[in-house]
């Protein structure tokens, strides 16, 4: 009985050592470990994992291929549904998706689907076969944004023969994979850059430093530059703040700013010019993956680092693995705590944060129990940096410069199920449509839109 084997533990950097470096925390399986872990899969008749995967990867099938050592076949099976396995294997919240529904997880431990996917993805990056560049069909598609949605859309369209140009506002390609998710969770050179390189080899062109809505517009791309269709995958880049007193003090910053300085601008590396200020004690407000990324980055830069979150630990929206890793690394978690005011010194720098204790009441619209303030529970946490990780919303730049492009009240671009917007020939997907979500959902939306664009341009 294959399922008698316990889940194969994955090798990780020692917490004490990794809390001082930016190298990847999780080292992943080797072939032997991966094959052993694959052997645990029951290959269920009615696999629940497939339905729980946002893009319905044929999970038991790729694991079956791994059992007999046919990694190339496993890679092909995954590729039918996912274009970024080495990335999703690392950043997907597996515990609430595939692994969360694994039968083995009911009485014991689920199959480590994420780690297996990562193994296959990495193997593919190292052993990819010759890519045949498809013959061009003469039609041009512009992709706005080079994050997961844009990359997936570009890659599929290029394979169908379209001439694809990806426009990126920043100086580096990758979107949130580059500016948001830290090196210790998603290596840039070994994983992200190589995934992008494989898309480049399909003939996709990348133009950085082009801000759609400023440098060019959706209309100028279609009218002046001859693009037959446009896909908008510009993400959700605008940081939210709490609107509490003291938020503009020196030392208060968005997680986006902190992480962009560290990740995109390499501020942690002395050879790079961009400064970063981490202080002695950092408080990160929020409980999502971005909050975990920020707090663990602060720790690695030498600060004492604390998470402040208004609900309890079970409600933390971050991946369980990230919370676990953060705790191992010595991050302090202050749950059921909500900031009310940031305190400044006479020079306008942060000296502390005033908080109140919370308790959980009735479930709210999101189904989570809503936090209620405990009266007279004010207390102060001394700190010199406060990082706000409260979520992000779509950048209004494109919507505000594109006539007749409909958006919701929350600023999200409105599309049908296939990514078609209110404008003919203009498609959208990912966080700019859904609001901040996951890499895999954005990737899935990009692929769906690629199909819709192909249909649109074929029938045109």
């Amino acid at each position, binding site marked *: 009985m294959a399922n008698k084997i316990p889940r194969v533990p994955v090798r990780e950097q020692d917490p004490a050592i990794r809390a001082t470096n930016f190298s990847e925390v999780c080292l992943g399986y080797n072939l032997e470990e991966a094959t052993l872990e694959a052997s645990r899969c029951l290959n269920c008749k009615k696999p629940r994992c497939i339905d729980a995967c946002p893009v319905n990867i044929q999970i038991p099938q790729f694991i079956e291929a791994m059992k007999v050592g046919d990694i190339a076949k496993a890679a092909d099976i995954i590729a039918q549904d996912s274009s970024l396995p080495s990335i999703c294997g690392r950043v997907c919240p597996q515990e609430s998706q595939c692994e969360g529904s694994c039968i083995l997880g009911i009485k014991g431990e689920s199959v480590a689907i994420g780690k297996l996917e990562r193994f296959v993805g990495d193997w593919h990056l190292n052993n990819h076969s010759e890519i045949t560049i498809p013959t061009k069909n003469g039609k041009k598609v512009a992709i706005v944004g080079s994050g997961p949605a844009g990359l997936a859309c570009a890659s599929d369209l290029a394979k169908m023969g379209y001439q694809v140009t990806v426009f990126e506002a920043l100086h580096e390609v990758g979107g949130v994979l580059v500016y948001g998710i830290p090196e210790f969770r998603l290596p840039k050179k070994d994983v992200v850059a190589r995934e992008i390189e494989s898309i480049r080899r399909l003939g996709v062109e990348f133009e950085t430093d082009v801000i759609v809505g400023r440098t060019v517009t959706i209309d100028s791309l279609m009218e002046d530059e001859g693009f037959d269709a446009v896909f908008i995958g510009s993400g959700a880049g605008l940081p939210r703040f709490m609107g509490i007193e003291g938020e503009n003090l020196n030392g208060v910053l968005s997680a986006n700013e902190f992480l962009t300085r560290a990740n995109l601008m390499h501020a942690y590396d002395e050879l*790079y010019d961009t400064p970063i200020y981490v202080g002695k004690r950092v408080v990160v407000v929020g409980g999502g993956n971005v909050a975990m990324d920020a707090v663990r980055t602060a720790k690695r830069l030498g600060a004492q680092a604390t998470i402040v979150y208004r609900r309890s630990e079970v409600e933390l929206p971050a991946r369980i693995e990230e919370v676990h890793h953060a705790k191992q690394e010595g991050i302090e978690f202050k749950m059921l705590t909500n900031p009310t005011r940031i305190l400044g010194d006479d020079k306008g720098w942060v000296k502390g944060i005033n908080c109140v204790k919370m308790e959980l009441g009735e479930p709210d619209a999101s189904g989570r129990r809503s936090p209620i303030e405990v009266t007279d529970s004010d207390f102060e946490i001394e700190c010199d940096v406060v990082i706000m990780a409260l979520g992000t919303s779509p950048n209004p730049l494109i919507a505000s410069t594109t006539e007749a492009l409909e958006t919701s009240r929350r600023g999200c671009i409105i599309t049908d199920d296939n990514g078609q917007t209110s404008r003919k020939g203009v498609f959208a997907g990912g966080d700019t449509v859904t609001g901040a979500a996951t890499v895999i959902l954005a990737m899935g939306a990009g692929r769906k839109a690629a199909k819709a664009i192909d249909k649109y341009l074929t029938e045109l």
Partner: protein
Amino acid sequence: MVEILDRQLLAEGIWQTKVLAPRIAKAAKPGQFIIVRADEKGERIPLTIADYDANEGWVTMVTQALGVSTRKIVAKVAGEHFADVAGPLGRPSDFVTEPIEELKRRRFIFVAGGVGTAPVYPQVKWLKEHDIEADVIIGAKTKDMLIYTEQMKAVAANLYIATDDGSEGFHGLVTSLLEELITEKGKQYDCCVAIGPMIMMKFVTMTAKKFNLPCIVSLNALMVDGTGMCGACRVSIAGKTKFTCVDGPEFNAYDVDFDEAMRRQGMYRTVEQRALAIAKERTEGHKCNIGLDK
């Protein structure tokens, strides 16, 4: 990579760099800025656009060498390349979208201080191209630090110079000159646009207020991406938090919390000063400050 077409010294430590950037040149409007990254390890530095030509595809910027990054920018000569130039960013000046006839009735006074003279130039030039008159005050510490006076003369209705030491033009601050123009020279204005150091803009705003003169300032906040993503450029405008990069850079001067804006500009000063000291030591060698070399 963006090719540098030309570099000129305008005053001590102040350089004008012209780059080949056809997309930016085509899209640029008065009031907008660009982000420049000198090399692969460089910082993203926001700089106002000093001039542009859509047909020839170039953009110029004026940079005062103050820290590691601005020094890297001014060090690049014609034929060399910047790693990146992105833009145009920010909202164009409001007048760009206002009816020309209305603008023709408006009496503009631009107050430019130091390198802030450079971003004033495309605004006055645009107005001139649309037959709209504008007076301009350029201020500097001393005669040698004045920039863009010739260019400005060609587009301004009247150009007034102020130097702190009186080495050219009016002897004193731009605020005193503005006050003199209004009270003693009988000049009447309906719109003041002030661009320069934050402290100058604060005082021009106070002067304008005395005469109930509507005033616009262009803020030079710290930024990383310049597209609304990081929020480093937060400023308080009429008590509300705004992002300089996407909501500005130009704001109604009366709404700006200048003291907060100045304080926030200093957020990374110590880190930057340390970086500059390290860079200096690398090129000039270490000088011991505690006497160990004696």
